[in-house]
């Protein structure tokens, strides 16, 4: 009596599986072209990043840190990057950065317009909000399965899974940002008779920018976290080294790769955060 009767069962998972299978068999061409697109973008990103000499990258990070936060932060970031290099994870770091960047760019291109639309159309928001809730509560590993089914193993499904995982914060915060632009400012803009585009570009977006940048920062951090997980389906880079270390129970390697991820995450977080601060304007 304590057990739920087995005759009532709902195999929701089966339906999803059927759906994904149907997608991959009947619409292979669509996913092939998506894959080719993502791959081309990713490779371009990689070749640009790996083309830059290591000392130039460190130089750029130093200058960015110095300009945005101060000399001490700049030096601190430089030191962290040098440590990553000394530990022997320079190339893996570059790979990770290029996957993260690709995923973040795709997330922003999709997420910001979605956020703006949700802010303007209540009905759209009613649909998008529960989807985002679901996306955020779903364990990150779950995204790996459809990613593999749609795109196979390799970098592309990794980028795909990372993008999906990193998408919610930028949508949410864009919606929040646009909705919290002061009412009087919106009225002031409206009173001059702008087109919806003019109002968006000249007032709403600039006003919303600090909050949107907070969303960009969170999206980047989520991508950073996911890219490690998605090493399980073939994303090379720092996460892959961690995965190998786990398999071999190699504590030394795990620590080196792990600390590199932490350093990289700190640098990216601080830099994107302080870019956001630059957009802040007081009333």
């Amino acid at each position: 009596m304590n057990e739920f009767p087995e005759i009532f069962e709902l195999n929701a998972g089966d339906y999803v599986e059927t759906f994904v299978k149907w997608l991959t068999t009947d619409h292979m061409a669509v996913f092939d072209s998506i894959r080719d697109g993502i791959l081309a973008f990713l490779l371009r990103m990689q070749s640009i990043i790996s083309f830059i000499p290591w000392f130039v990258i460190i130089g750029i990070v130093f200058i960015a840190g110095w300009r945005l936060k101060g000399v001490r932060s700049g030096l601190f970031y430089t030191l962290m990057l040098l440590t990553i290099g000394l530990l022997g994870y320079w190339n893996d770091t570059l790979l990770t950065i290029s996957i993260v960047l690709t995923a973040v760019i795709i997330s922003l291109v999709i997420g910001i317009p979605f956020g703006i639309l949700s802010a303007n159309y209540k009905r759209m928001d009613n649909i998008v909000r529960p989807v985002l809730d679901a996306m955020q509560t779903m364990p990150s590993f779950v995204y790996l399965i459809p990613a593999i089914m749609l795109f196979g193993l390799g970098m592309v499904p990794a980028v795909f899974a990372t993008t999906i995982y990193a998408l919610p914060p930028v949508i949410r915060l864009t919606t929040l940002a646009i909705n919290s632009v002061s009412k009087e400012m919106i009225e002031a803009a409206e009173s001059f008779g702008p087109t919806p585009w003019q109002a968006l570009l000249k007032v709403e977006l600039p006003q919303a920018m600090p909050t949107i940048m907070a969303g960009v920062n969170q999206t980047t951090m989520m991508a950073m976290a996911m890219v490690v997980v998605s090493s399980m389906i073939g994303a090379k880079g720092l996460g892959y080294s961690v995965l190998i270390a786990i398999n071999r129970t190699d504590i030394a390697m795990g620590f080196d790769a792990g600390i590199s991820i932490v350093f990289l995450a700190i640098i990216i977080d601080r830099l994107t955060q302080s870019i956001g601060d630059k957009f802040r304007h007081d009333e």
Partner: protein
Amino acid sequence: MEKIRVENLTKIFGKHPQKALEELEKGKKRDEILKETHHTVGIGNVSFSVHEGETFVIMGLSGSGKSTLIRCLNLLNKPTAGKIFVDDENILDYDKKALRQFRQTKIAMVFQHFGLFSHRSVLENVEFGLEIKKMDKEERVTKSLEMLKAVGLEGWEYHKVSALSGGMKQRVGLARALANEPEIILMDEPFSALDPLIRRDMHTELLDLQAKLKKTIIFITHDVNEAFKLGDRIAVLKDGEMVQIGTPEEILDNPADEYITNFIEDIDRSRVLRAENIMRKRSLKIGKNTAAKIALEILNDSDYEHGFITDRHDNRILGVVDADDLLLAIKGKLPIAEVMHTDFVSVSEDAYVKEVLEIAAATKYPVAVVNGEGEYVGRIQRAALLKALV
């Protein structure tokens, strides 16, 4: 000339305004409708018209619907029922494009909390309206600089808005509205967020600007003194309904109901009433060539102690006499001109009572009132002055 005509305007807030509108048309009151249908009547059945070039003040306590009303005039609020004619066009018939055109060219608004764009510099704020109109950069910068100069903000063009004080921010708001060269300016309690001294400066400035520009201004306020100082005509709004419309003097003289009486109780009447409102019109005057004996009879027949001596041809005041002076003239067989006093004082008919008070304190004669051409039009006795103040 009539610029704006509002007919039976109603704005109801809530999900199903039509239902509440029916109730309103049945003659139900605002609180009844709120209780029964949970709809707020912002304004109900308001009609008025505004003349070209006048400052029309809408006065009311908070919650009286004045902000709702002014926002209907540029359709920031969409009215539930009624008509709004601007230059004989019903703006409620406008489609989106026509509405944009209307807002870009005809009407501009100044906000209570300024509504400035914090991501733009002072200059860029003023440029905003012109930018929306797609005026080219050079032209709009020239024009905006000019406007900033007109409101006394020279030297602040490239500062951030946040660096400005409240008064200066509202000047930016005003310059931004004026830069668009609108025919109508809506001002929603523009000075109520400022401290009293700054507010007084802004009043003077607005009056000066308006004397030059002659725009049609709709001005919202809850401050009676402000309303009476700035308004050519004043409309009093209560619970979303228009209680009275009239010139400041009309409202002071004949408050329509107790609400208005209470409202105007603590107003400084000496700053509202003018000499012409309290003077005795065409009161006793004596020609300069009148015989002293006849003059004395005229004076004794009247209830005045003093008589003004005027020139019959151009109606100018020459002097003032009392009965003793005339007796002196009769005794000495002198013409009136020899005995009259010329140290009388006169004020223009549009002088405020406040100015008359200062002058009256320094003379023992009644104050003569003259019109623009310098002709005698009336007099103000001390008793009239006292009466005007209470």
